[in-house]
């Protein structure tokens, strides 16, 4: 058998295995079952690293908005493909880190400071967990309106600063047991290896609870934009805590009060005249991803309304959907798995009668926190009304208001937050 023959046989074996996975696609593409009648495909024609069909065009960069956001309107299931995970900030090139050189230092109020290589971290007992990562500024449908007078059109722009992945790595609590933690310690500060060396203080109680030091994302190494080769995953906390390119953890008896604690993330409360710093968990939030802003329903008839719900406080317990602008609500079906601090897919059957309709969802998490309307949010956030939220230049983070989409008679769907 010459090399070409051997290659061909290997391909046929591989092809048979593939056929089991994707027989539908292969059949419909060639019109017949895979087998000897197919024109010969040489093994080198197979892409060493798979690519999606040229008919699939979903990207995380919206042509009208330079910011990188997850295209939730195209999402199915709960996992965000790594290549579509939003990036913040967009203007920093991910550092090009050689994993053989990369180290994690744990020091400060520990009994035994330690430096770990990637190889050593991967030898330790590992865990895989599905969690969302969401930016503190996510869900702010009003931001664009304040900038250019137009409401954000699509769910990518209103809610695209969240993504959900399966993360694999070691529990930070285990690493901290390796180093031992001194009795007085209550906080730690985590820091990245990128030129900016972004850092964030995290309560030790959270670190011991469920924080992951992750090297895997969705079955492969974490992507460079997401922190290759090592990152922190702090389930449910606002995105900035999830330090990427993790290089150092210092255990402390108080927060370190570095820039991310005191500059960008605190929000000024109008009712108190003071800024709220240290906001940790993202509130319960849900949004309908289909039908959503910018989409068009081709005709009246059956549609499955679907969307995502998640909460930094725990698992989603309930999602309700309204198709009449919030007058009546019905329970949506939650798609398994329903996991803590993870996107949860919900579904709701709907027959569109061709009339105008306003679709929205609201969720409740398992500590019984309920997603608010915009007006309710304003009151709790800082004693302000919706009018304030629509116009203020004061930064408002953590907006988790109910998001309505309006379906017009012509089937077009648009943002109806106001």
């Amino acid at each position, binding site marked *: 058998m010459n090399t070409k023959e051997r290659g061909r046989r290997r391909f046929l074996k591989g092809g048979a295995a593939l056929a089991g996975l994707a027989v539908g696609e292969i059949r419909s593409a060639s019109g017949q079952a895979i087998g000897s009648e197919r024109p010969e495909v040489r093994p080198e024609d197979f892409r060493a690293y798979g690519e999606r069909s040229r008919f699939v065009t979903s990207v995380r960069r919206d042509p009208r908005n330079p910011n990188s956001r997850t295209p939730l309107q195209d999402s199915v299931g709960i996992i965000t493909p790594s290549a579509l995970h939003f990036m913040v900030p967009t203007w920093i090139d991910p550092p090009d880190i050689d994993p053989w050189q990369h180290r994690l*230092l744990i020091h400060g109020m520990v009994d035994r400071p330690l430096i770990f290589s990637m190889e050593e971290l991967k030898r330790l007992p590992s865990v895989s967990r599905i969690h969302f990562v969401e930016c503190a500024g996510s869900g702010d449908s009003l931001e664009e309106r304040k900038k250019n007078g137009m409401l954000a059109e699509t769910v990518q722009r209103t809610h695209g600063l969240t993504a959900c992945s399966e993360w694999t790595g070691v529990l930070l609590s285990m690493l901290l047991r390796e180093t031992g933690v001194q009795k007085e310690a209550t906080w730690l500060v985590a820091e990245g290896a990128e030129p900016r060396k972004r850092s964030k203080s995290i309560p030790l109680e959270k670190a011991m609870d469920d924080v992951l030091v992750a090297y895997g994302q969705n079955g492969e190494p974490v992507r460079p934009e997401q922190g290759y080769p090592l990152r922190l995953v702090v389930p449910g906390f606002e995105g900035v805590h999830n330090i990427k390119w993790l290089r150092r953890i210092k255990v402390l008896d108080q927060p370190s009060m570095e820039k991310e604690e005191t500059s960008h993330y605190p929000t000024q409360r109008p009712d108190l005249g003071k800024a709220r710093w240290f906001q940790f968990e993202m509130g319960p939030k849900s949004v309908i991803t289909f039908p959503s802003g910018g989409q068009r329903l081709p005709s009246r008839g059956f549609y499955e309304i679907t969307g995502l719900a998640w909460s930094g406080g725990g698992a989603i317990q309930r999602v309700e959907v309204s198709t009449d602008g919030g007058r009546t609500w019905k329970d949506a079906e939650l798609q398994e798995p329903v996991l803590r601090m993870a996107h949860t897919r919900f579904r709701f059957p709907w027959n569109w009668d061709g009339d105008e309709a306003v679709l929205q969802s609201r969720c409740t998490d398992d500590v019984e926190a309920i997603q608010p309307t915009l007006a309710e949010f304003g009151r709790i956030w800082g004693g302000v009304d919706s009018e304030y939220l629509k116009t203020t230049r004061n930064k408002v983070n953590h907006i988790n208001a109910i998001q309505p989409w309006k379906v017009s008679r012509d089937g077009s769907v648009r943002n109806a937050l106001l």
Partner: protein
Amino acid sequence: MRCYSLLVPLVALASCAAARAQTPLHNLGRTPSAEEIRAWDISINPEGKGLPPGSGTAKQGETLYEHKCARCHGKTGTEGPNEPLIGGQGTLQTERPVRTIGSFWPFATTIWDYINRGMPQYEEGSLSADQVYAITAFLLYRNGIIHESDVIDANSLPKIQMPNRNGFVPPKPEWKRREKRPFGIYH
């Protein structure tokens, strides 16, 4: 291996961690030298712990600012294109708050920490300790917080009272596991 079970109550887990603290579980990782830790540890806390020797004044900082910072933060520190670094005091309560290191930041040490770790953008880590002290002094002076002749060093920097030091809630930040908060917001 019991210690890893999620079913073990938290109390048991904590005492288990304490018992294990004596002996490393897996014996992986190596002990860094004191020198290595010093080189890596760039965190400066509000008491100034971690600040290196060195000093600077606003006068020395002025030319450094012009050469290394002005193109992004503006000649006067107010006009951008990037974050304003000067001004904004008295605006926090308005609907157009101007948040700068002078009007908003509660600790002067954070200014030193951040310039030292992350600025100038694209040339991060290029400034000497003296240069960071000098630029910090210049920015504090232009924000009306210190005098032009004040010498800023590891001793004087943490003592500076920032105008918005008491502008934050809660006074002592903490996190409680699974505590119910309306809409995810802490009060």
